């Protein structure tokens, strides 16, 4: 038993307790001397014994709660699963706004070092988007909140529990009146059960759900169409004609990874008929970049276009005949109506293969209209199911109700586990002020952010990689979140915070989770539990789709209520979630800040995107600062001229302009869009004023030239011209004329193939490469100087003469491992040489940094350490490094290695198994992460390997073939499938 001295006796005596009853019992008398001091009065035998007992209990608990002394000892007996140098993989999940993506996480010597998708998981299928992968850096972020705080004073979790119990007692008496919870959109069964129990204990308490990017309008649309809250499940594997109405299906965002794969599988002309994609949108999105036809509409006009299309379908689809007059009600321009007619015809022809998908920013009526179309066409690509989220109403509307209660003084205790509502809330709610007025507020957060500054108690959250939990995937599949590392800082999970109000603050998330699932599936639990955790999810736990009747009358009535045209004069504001920081919660992740936006290639900030014509009208050039004014205070933004943007509107991405000193990385980066968001119009609104501010900003874009100058760089062709193009490409592949004797590669001959038809530009590969290869982040100033370090970049070129709505082609480009490499012969110190398997290798410790290799590299894929970019890494950040890859020093050149460390690991493990390497044994990081499987790596000596087959395809060409470099990476020309009627 630990001595009584181990108890902290100064200041507040610690009050540990085992149950609420104990806690609510009269407090143990205390004086300065602490619990061991005899009480002044009533020193009866009974009280002495009581005291003795209590002291013993407290002392025991004190010993239990104190973190154990840490001693570093070698394993005397090595745990069977740990071999130093061999990484371990665990299944877990990343949960963004309640949608789980199954992950497979690599841990090297006990520290997570790489996040990949779980190939078995339905919402990942092995892929992981930039956000999921970047969770790794959030784990190691030294700027995370480290201790519990009460009004900026550091406290302990036990202090909080004590306070919570006091509050709980009062609240319980009031039946929970004044107790409010503000949670993020969640699907966790554990949190769901806690919520239920909380409502049982506090009948008057209420839960509100908040996310700056809510799915509320989807649910409202389903309500309109089906009379209940439903979510639409998409299946693009059946799709022939897909219409995206502002629905960004092909960006690697929460819930899209499996769709991207299905879409890409339908884009190979050699494998069955290709699908066709139409996109109706305001700003060029990742989906729009990949669309066969792109229709630009002002944000408020997207719904009108959709309803007009519904009207056009009335003529050919009997079930939709009542909508015929929508064509007259929502007249389109001549060009748009030509496209809409062709599109309507195309959708009708596609029938079961037709799919209309509507983005979450669009009004409910458009969602309902899409349901009407999909159902009338008998689309096999959609199905309705009960939402996986606990609250279908999560967003500004719910937050407004809460804010009103708060302002009226109706909220006594507010527990916030939603991400940063003070930052994300529309300006008109003035949520920060309302929060300051709440007498008792608790905020559970990973960072000391804007909301934390105004909250009473701030409880550090555990990172998903440190915590236990569960959540549902997009199809309802229960997925488990498992810790891979013991918490770096004192934190708790959301479930533990909620449990504190049930008097169960001492029950860890693990206990709660296990008990919940034990009660839910008691049969064979132990075996199942092991399997679930090993798999990362419960197979077959998805919620089934339901057959529903579309309520056409209601939809029609709602459609007729949509104003015929926008009457407010002025420009329109169009607010979009950011591809990199989402709603701002990933803003402190340097990988994401430095990741070029897939469309604008802008890093380290957001900007006001304008169509070239609109910019011309306003007299604005790239980088000019403007003042954007709506009803709130103006926002100051730099201008980025965005070809393909709709005219007379301005698109801004949310998630920037944070004012959180603790999050030093993102503090003050970009501008905040909250002032442009109104609770009633959180996504777009008319009446925007754009005033040139007269100053200029230096933008950090990774690509500044967007034309291919007529060169064959990223080849793109249409299905109709495929044959012709392939014949042309034949002159751009194979072995060029040479004097030299060809070099033999008798063993392995590594090569890669990149299918431009599959690449959507989502940038998941870039983050995967950065994580796998310890690529440093260099900061905005360095990016502006064109010194970014990404080994893999995605080039984005505009095609065609039409700057208003150009075509786009994307090209991932990293070292192509030339067989006749121009970089090798110019290096004076032999620091870059060729391996016998054809890898162009870089020997970092031999490199003196003349940069001649980069000058002579026609692809310019080499990256130079102009400074020592890794020397200021915090100790925790260093834990994210991949131990298999050298961290480069200043003055050294680096570049893609074809993930040589993975080749070597596969070589070792196959040798241990006593066999040679087979196709699929080596998977590069970019290939692994790619949601569309656009990147394939393998042995070109193996004729049966997938990569060899791709190299033999007629769409294959070698980049800059005429230089005779003989790149090992081959590209497959992109093929689009435009509607012949619109050609």
């Amino acid at each position, binding site marked *: 038993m630990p001595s009584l001295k181990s108890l902290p006796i100064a200041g507040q005596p610690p009050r540990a307790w085992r149950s609420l009853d104990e806690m609510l019992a009269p407090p143990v008398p205390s004086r300065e001397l602490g619990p061991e001091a005899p009480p002044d009065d009533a020193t009866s035998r009974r009280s002495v014994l009581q005291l003795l007992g209590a002291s013993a209990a407290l002392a025991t608990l004190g010993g239990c709660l104190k973190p154990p002394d840490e001693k570093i000892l070698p394993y005397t007996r090595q745990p069977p699963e740990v071999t130093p140098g061999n990484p371990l993989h665990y299944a877990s999940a990343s949960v963004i706004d309640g949608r789980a993506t199954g992950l497979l996480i690599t841990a090297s010597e006990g520290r997570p070092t790489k996040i990949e998708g779980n190939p078995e998981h339905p919402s990942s299928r092995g892929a992981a988007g930039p956000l999921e992968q970047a969770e790794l850096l959030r784990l190691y972020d030294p700027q995370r909140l480290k201790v519990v705080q009460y009004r900026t004073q550091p406290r302990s979790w036990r202090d909080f529990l004590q306070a919570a119990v006091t509050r709980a007692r009062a609240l319980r008496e009031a039946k929970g009146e004044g107790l409010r919870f503000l949670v993020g959109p969640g699907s966790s069964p554990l949190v769901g059960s806690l919520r239920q129990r909380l409502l049982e204990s506090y009948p008057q308490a209420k839960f509100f759900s908040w996310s700056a990017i809510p799915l509320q309008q989807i649910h409202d649309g389903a309500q309109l169409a089906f009379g209940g809250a439903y979510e639409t499940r998409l299946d693009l594997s059946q799709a022939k004609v897909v219409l995206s109405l502002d629905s960004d299906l092909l960006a690697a965002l929460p819930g899209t990874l499996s769709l991207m794969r299905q879409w890409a599988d339908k884009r190979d002309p050699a494998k069955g008929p290709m699908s066709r994609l139409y996109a109706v949108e305001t700003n060029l999105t990742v989906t729009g970049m990949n669309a066969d036809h792109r229709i630009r509409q002002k944000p408020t006009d997207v719904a009108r276009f959709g309803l007009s299309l519904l009207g056009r379908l009335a003529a050919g689809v009997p079930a939709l005949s009542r909508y015929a007059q929508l064509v007259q009600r929502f007249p389109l321009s001549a060009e748009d109506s030509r496209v809409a007619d062709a599109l309507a015809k195309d959708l009708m022809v596609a029938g079961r293969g037709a799919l209309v998908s509507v983005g979450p920013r669009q009004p409910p009526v458009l969602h309902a209209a899409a349901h009407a179309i999909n159902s009338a066409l008998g689309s096999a690509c959609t199905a309705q199911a009960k939402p996986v989220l606990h609250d279908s109403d999560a967003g500004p509307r719910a937050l407004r109700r809460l804010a009103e209660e708060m302002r009226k003084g109706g909220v006594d205790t507010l527990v916030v586990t939603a991400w940063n509502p003070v930052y994300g809330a529309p300006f008109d709610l003035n949520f920060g002020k309302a929060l300051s007025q709440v007498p008792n507020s608790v905020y559970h957060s990973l960072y000391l952010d804007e909301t934390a500054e105004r909250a009473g108690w701030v409880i550090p959250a555990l990172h998903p990689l440190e915590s236990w939990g569960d959540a549902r995937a997009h199809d309802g599949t229960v997925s488990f979140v498992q810790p891979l590392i013991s918490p770096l800082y004192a934190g708790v999970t959301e479930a533990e915070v909620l449990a504190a109000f049930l008097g169960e603050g001492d029950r860890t998330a693990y206990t709660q989770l296990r008990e919940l699932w034990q009660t839910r599936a008691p049969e064979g639990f132990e075996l199942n539990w092991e399997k679930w955790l090993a798999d990362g999810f419960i197979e077959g736990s998805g919620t089934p789709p339901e057959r529903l009747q579309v309520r056409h009358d209601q939809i029609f009535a709602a459609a007729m209520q949509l104003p015929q045209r926008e009457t407010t004069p002025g420009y329109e504001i169009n607010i979009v979630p950011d591809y990199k920081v989402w709603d701002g919660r990933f803003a402190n992740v340097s990988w994401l800040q430095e990741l070029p936006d897939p469309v604008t290639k802008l890093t380290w900030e957001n900007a006001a995107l304008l169509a070239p014509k609109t910019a011309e009208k306003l007299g604005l050039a790239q980088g000019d600062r403007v003042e954007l004014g709506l009803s709130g205070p103006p926002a100051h933004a730099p201008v980025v001229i965005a070809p393909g943007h709709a005219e007379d509107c301005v698109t801004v991405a949310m998630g920037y302009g944070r004012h959180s000193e603790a999050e030093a990385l993102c503090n003050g980066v970009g501008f905040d869009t909250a002032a442009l968001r109104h609770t009633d119009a959180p996504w777009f609104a008319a009446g925007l004023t754009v005033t040139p501010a007269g100053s200029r900003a230096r933008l950090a874009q990774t690509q500044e030239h967007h034309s291919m*100058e007529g060169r064959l*760089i990223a080849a793109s062709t249409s299905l109709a011209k495929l044959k012709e193009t392939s014949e042309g490409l034949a002159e751009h592949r194979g072995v060029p004329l040479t004097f030299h004797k060809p070099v033999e590669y008798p063993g392995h001959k590594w090569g890669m193939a990149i299918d431009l038809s599959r690449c959507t530009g989502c940038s998941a590969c870039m983050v995967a490469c950065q994580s796998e290869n310890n690529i440093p982040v260099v900061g905005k100033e*360095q990016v502006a100087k*064109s010194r970014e370090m990404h080994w893999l970049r995605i080039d984005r070129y505009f095609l065609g003469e039409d700057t208003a709505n150009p075509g786009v082609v994307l090209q991932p480009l990293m070292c192509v491992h030339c067989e006749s490499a121009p970089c090798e012969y110019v290096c*004076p*110190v*032999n620091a870059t040489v060729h391996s016998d398997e054809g890898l162009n290798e870089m020997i970092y410790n031999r490199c*003196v940094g003349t940069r001649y290799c980069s000058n*002579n590299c026609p692809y310019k894929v080499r990256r130079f350490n*102009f400074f020592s970019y890794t020397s200021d890494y915090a100790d925790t950040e260093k834990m994210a490094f991949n131990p298999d890859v050298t961290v480069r020093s200043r003055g050294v050149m680096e570049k893609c290695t074809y993930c040589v460390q993975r080749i070597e690991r596969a070589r070792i493990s196959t040798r241990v198994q006593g066999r040679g390497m087979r196709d699929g044994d080596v998977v590069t990081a970019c290939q692994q992460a790619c949601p569309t499987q656009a990147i394939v790596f393998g042995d070109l000596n193996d004729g049966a390997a997938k990569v060899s087959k791709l190299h033999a395809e007629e769409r294959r060409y070698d980049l800059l073939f005429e230089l005779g470099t003989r790149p090992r990476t081959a590209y497959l020309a992109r093929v689009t499938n435009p509607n012949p009627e619109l050609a």
Partner: protein
Amino acid sequence: MAETAIEGRTELRPPALVQGEQDDGTLNKTLNAFIWEPPRRGWLALLGLGLAGTGLLSAAVAVTLAKGIGTWGNNIPVGWAFGIINFVWWIGIGHAGTLISAILLLFQQKWRTSINRFAEAMTLFAVMQAGLFPVLHTGRPWFAIYWLFPYPSTLKIWPQFKSPLMWDVFAVSTYFTTSLLFWYLGLIPDLASLRDSSTSRRARIAYGIFALGWRGSARHWHHYKIAYLLLAGLATPLVLSVHTIVSWDFALSILPGWHTTIFPPYFVAGAVFSGFAMVLTLIVPARRFMHLKHVVTPRHLEAMCKVMLLTGLIVAYGYAMEHFAAWYSGNEFEKHVFFFTRPRGPYAWAYFTQMFCNVVVPQIYWTRWGRTNIWAIWIGSLLINVGMWFERFNIIVTSLHQDFIPSNWAMYYPTWVDLSLLAGTICFFGTLFLLFLKFLPAVAVSEIKELNHEIHQGHAGISLHSPDRPLHAGELEGAVR
């Protein structure tokens, strides 16, 4: 016929290379006067400026070494910029020295005598500036300084002999060594003369040490002449080889704008062009302030202008051929560089500066006025120096900033460190030169004396033929043609 020709010759008789009635005594006095007189205010002021600039150079070097190449404006795609521009520029400037010392010696051009010491010193100091950059521009100079040399290391790794950068190391180090030896050998008789005429004990000891015990005996002179001639023979191929190899740094790459077979001759011509321009830039003020007009006569200046005109024309031909080859090849990348990036791209101003300074300006030397007007010579030579710097800027930066794949394209902007390195090396060069002028004879006194004797008494000097006749115009033109 013959009669007329002889008459014409007499009329064309050029002005003497040593003006006025000079003897050894007056020459000794006038040519070394600057050394013995107390430092002048102007000299001190210039030295102060030079030292300040050298301080700036040290600061820029220190920052580069401490923080990295990131303090320069270089990026990807522009991996080389000011560092290599300055290197090539200074190496080019250094070419005049060898040409004047060695080639003109072998061709028996008498007018070289008054300027060879000057040019050699300039060469040496220019190569010293140039030598800074190859090491400094690397990412890890602490390794680059010896890993580029082929020595049997325990790493068992040799340098890459296929790399032109490797060849550069040999070319530049050989050039520096030979130039130093040549310069020093030529100095020995003059150092002895200074030793003998010095009034202070310290000067006598200092000059005495470096004079290596020269007594001016016939045996000394005999050995001296042989060594000098041998070194001249050794240095002669270097004039062609050094800049040829420097040009291979570019020509051997595959980058459009670099990958050009005309580079070696055009780089050598450009080097001589800029070297003579630098000699003129320096000698025009020096001959005035150091009272050397009697040995550095308008005839000398004119001859140098003619060399500049000739090499300028070769350079202009090089430019024309580059453009022609780009057009004739039909290669889209080449055409982009020569017909878009350079004349119409964002650095077009640099291109036109180069063209004006290197092609238009030297044309004034067709006229007698241009070759004899001291301001025309001096400003022209300055502009040529500027033009040659921009030529290298265009070759290096402009070619790199827009190459094969348009997504790579990016602009290059120099930083304060880049500008300080350029300004700093100019100042350091100036400082070395000022010290040279103050402590060593700026003209080869012994050779001038010899020339003076030749002119007046017809004594055989270093010449293999008997020079017992006055120089005629044809000879001079032969040298510069």
